[in-house]
């Protein structure tokens, strides 16, 4: 039997949750014996290659590209897990949800204290993904099977969920591992 496949991706996140995954320390050696990696920052694949058993998604959906990546990811993951507060409630990026989009653009590209922009134009190249009206948690865009909260969740939390899934156990986190900060 081939090894189970894992994929990870980051949407509107800071890669902190991925850092937390690396934080499992020497257990990572055990992990690479147990699983094969599809798309992840480790191999820098731009698209998920094929169906995988477990997908970890970090970050919420802030722009149209995030949505496309998430939808592609969902289609290819048997179990999809949203990792960290940004994926679960939008996190820090969602602080813009209380500000009109136009004001966000103006602050970022025109009026911000560190902005130098003599033409005062907001970049609108077709290569730049369009921002959504709000930052959305992943489970408001696609179906998500499990959530691992935390800013970011601890390495132990990620490991606990992973070990449970790899051994067909239910993902039930002990009190100490459910944290929102």
């Amino acid at each position, binding site marked *: 039997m081939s090894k189970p496949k894992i994929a990870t991706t980051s949407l509107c996140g800071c890669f902190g949750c991925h850092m937390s995954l690396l934080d499992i320390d020497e257990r990572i050696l055990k992990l690479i014996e147990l699983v094969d990696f599809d798309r992840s920052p480790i191999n820098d694949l731009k698209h998920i290659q094929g169906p995988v058993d477990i997908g970890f998604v970090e970050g919420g959906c802030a722009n149209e590209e995030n949505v496309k990546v998430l939808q592609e990811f969902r289609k290819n993951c048997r179990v999809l897990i949203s990792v960290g507060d940004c994926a679960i409630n939008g996190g820090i990026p969602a602080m813009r*949800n209380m500000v009109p989009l136009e004001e966000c653009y103006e602050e970022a590209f025109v009026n911000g204290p560190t902005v130098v922009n003599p033409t005062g134009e907001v970049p609108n190249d077709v290569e730049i993904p369009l921002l959504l009206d709000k930052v959305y948690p992943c489970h408001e865009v696609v179906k998500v099977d499990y959530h*691992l909260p935390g800013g970011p969740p601890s390495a132990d939390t990620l490991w606990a969920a992973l070990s449970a899934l790899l051994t067909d156990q239910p993902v039930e986190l002990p009190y100490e591992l459910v944290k929102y900060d």
Partner: protein
Amino acid sequence: MTNQRIQLTIDGRKIEASSGQSILAAAEDAGVYIPRLCWMKGLSPAGSCRVCTVRVNGRPQSACTQPVTPGMIVENDTEELRGLRRNLIDMLFVEGNHFCMFCEKSGNCELQALAYRFGITAPKYPFMFPQRELDATHPEVFIDRNRCILCSRCVRASGELDGKHAFGFVGRGPDKRLAVNAEGGLGDTEVAVDDEAVGACPTGSLLKKRVGFEVPVGARRFDHVTIGSDVEEGTAK
């Protein structure tokens, strides 16, 4: 005759209580924790959050406002009630803007601790991301209404314990919000940093300035201990 001893049943267990006690207080004395948010020891009950909802002789009642009566049968820890409470907590999260990752109250927050107790990893309702106002006009205390759950603990503490009536609610429905009794904001009220009202807030809505993150992660109130476990172990103050 408020001190008359009476008997009732809670979750199938016979307990003794004093007549005049609320179900919540009687249960607490007997080592049974009924989850609650707007209730606070020393304040009159408000019955507003409904987290303490139990079934009394089959009918839902708020345990913090309902007095005990002889022979009453109370259900507290049932699948159904746990589900209802979970939903209430979920709603409080999505109706406000709770960013626990940088909230100064994180680890000491009763709302968050209840969510932990119920094992909530994500709310099931869509986030509303409402517009809420901050009030930083007071030199030593601030209000972040993003985290206010309208429990009225500060309102009652200010009136009943501090004798200042500095807080109240204005508006209705989704527009209901915490107000203060001065045009210029909290800084123009008589509120002092050591007021009971300031300490009464279960969330990070009413906080002292310049003491945030004083207690390191790992040593905060609910880092290792589930909310309510002190009641269950009989060590609650």
